[in-house]
């Protein structure tokens, strides 16, 4: 039982970071209907920026953290302007967007390899490694931090989407971009905001991931799992992305806890395929049909 609780808590913590990444995929998908594979590259850069802000720049942790998030926020917007906006203006088919996204992702990864190099780097020890004892369960300080920071970010995001004018505009644009423009919504601005939000959370997730594991150019590949989680939950749906991520995190830690960590990714992929076979729109897929 103790071991189960332990795994559950670890799963929640890793799942909540997946959720931070997954909402970035989902937000973009909900409006532009394509999977933004450049997102993994942005997360990777977030981990690097956090690392250098802490080490080279010597910033205190909170400043490095926010700094990394703001940097990737800007970066995500630059990617949108450079790689997707020209395609949107030409009304390119969605396949072009995916190709452009993949190209950007490969570019970012190789740019890091070419400039910084392929070596693994570990974050300095910001949080003490001694776990906190809650009853019989011991919880890592980092795991707790990951969970709380992610939960706060997600709560803020939900509030923003549900209770602000821009949030409603995002929901409207996700449903129908033409009708939104007819309301006077600047849909181009909505797209910028969506990339900015995704980029900001990517930075936070990148730093948390970097602290948990290490930083290296291919870390974006791990972030593919958050994409799996987003598809699992239903691409385009925010609650779907969060629920899918938490479930994936828990399934992963339970698998590695009770079987072997080598099966972890295998199970994640089998799960994705199974969901796609039985429910192609995911657990809470976006509803797109119009009622005439």
């Amino acid at each position, binding site marked *: 039982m103790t071991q189960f609780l332990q795994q559950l808590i670890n799963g929640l913590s890793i799942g909540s970071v997946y959720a931070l990444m997954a909402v970035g995929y989902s937000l973009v998908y909900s409006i532009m209907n394509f999977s933004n594979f450049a997102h993994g590259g942005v997360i990777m850069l977030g981990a690097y920026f956090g690392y250098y802000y802490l080490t080279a720049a010597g910033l205190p942790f909170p400043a490095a953290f926010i700094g990394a998030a703001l940097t990737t926020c800007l970066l995500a917007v630059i990617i949108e302007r450079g790689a997707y906006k020209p395609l949107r203006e030409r009304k390119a088919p969605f396949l072009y967007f995916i190709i452009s996204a993949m190209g950007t992702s490969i570019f970012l990864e190789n740019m890091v390899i070419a400039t910084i190099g392929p070596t693994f780097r570990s974050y300095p020890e910001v949080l003490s490694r001694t776990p906190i004892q809650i009853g019989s369960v011991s919880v890592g300080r980092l795991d707790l931090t990951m969970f709380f920071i992610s939960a706060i970010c997600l709560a803020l995001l939900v509030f923003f989407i549900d209770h602000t*004018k821009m949030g*409603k*505009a995002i*929901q*409207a644009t*996700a*449903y*129908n971009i*033409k*009708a*939104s*423009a*007819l*309301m*006077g*919504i*600047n849909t181009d601005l909505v797209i910028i905001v969506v990339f900015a939000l995704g980029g900001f959370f990517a930075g936070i997730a990148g730093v948390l991931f970097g602290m948990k594991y290490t930083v290296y150019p291919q870390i974006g590949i791990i972030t593919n799992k958050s994409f799996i989680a987003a598809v699992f939950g239903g691409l385009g749906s925010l609650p779907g992305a969060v629920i899918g991520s938490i479930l994936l995190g828990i399934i992963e830690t339970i698998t590695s806890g009770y079987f072997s960590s080598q099966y972890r990714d295998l199970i994640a992929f089998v799960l994705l395929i199974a969901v796609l076979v039985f429910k192609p729109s995911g657990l809470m897929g976006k*509803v797109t049909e*119009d*009622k*005439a």
Partner: protein
Amino acid sequence: MLKVENLNVYYGGIHALKGVSLNINKGEIVTIIGSNGAGKSTLLNTISGFLKYKEGTISYKEEKLPINPNKVVKLGICQVPEGRLVFANLTVEDNLMLGAYLRKDTKKIKEDLEKVYTLFPRLKERERQMAGTLSGGEQQMLAMGRGLMSDPELMLLDEPSLGLAPLLVQTVFDIILDIRKMDKTILLVEQNAYKALSIADRAYVLEQGRIKMEGSAKEIAENPLVQEAYLGAKV
């Protein structure tokens, strides 16, 4: 108020509007009738700033209209699109409030919301319901109410009676007359030529991208060619 001159619009190689000219005066109901594919929606979408055009001009209150949907809304022109396009994932009230997206006058917005609810009591009863769960007729009312929330001077209505039961069609046309009384000018695009001509002041007949006829609604309704093609009369 709105003046379209020699407008030509293309979709790639398809020449959808061929030298269309028309004008609308303040306070009028002007209707454009035409069959499927005549170019009616293309015309409204061009006015609304969705489609680029190379030849021709569109001016509103003597100034060139920008080719940019949100600027067009800001100038007081709103379109209620074909097929309604209500935001199914949002509540009725959210939909209406999105209509007022560009407005800042909170007090006036509240008043206008009440006006819309008076005009469409059904919407008031369903204000917290998701728009996607409304019936087709209710969605049409929501789309019109949402358009009114932008406090437009000119409303472009694209086939508001499409797919509605006869009784509801009548309701929709009655409502258009009510909207005119709210000091709005209306450009009404319809396939239901009979009803449209019965409430309009003036009319244009659009065929294959060309204006074929124009005149007072009465003249057009009495024209034998129109009667045969659009009103189902045998000549």
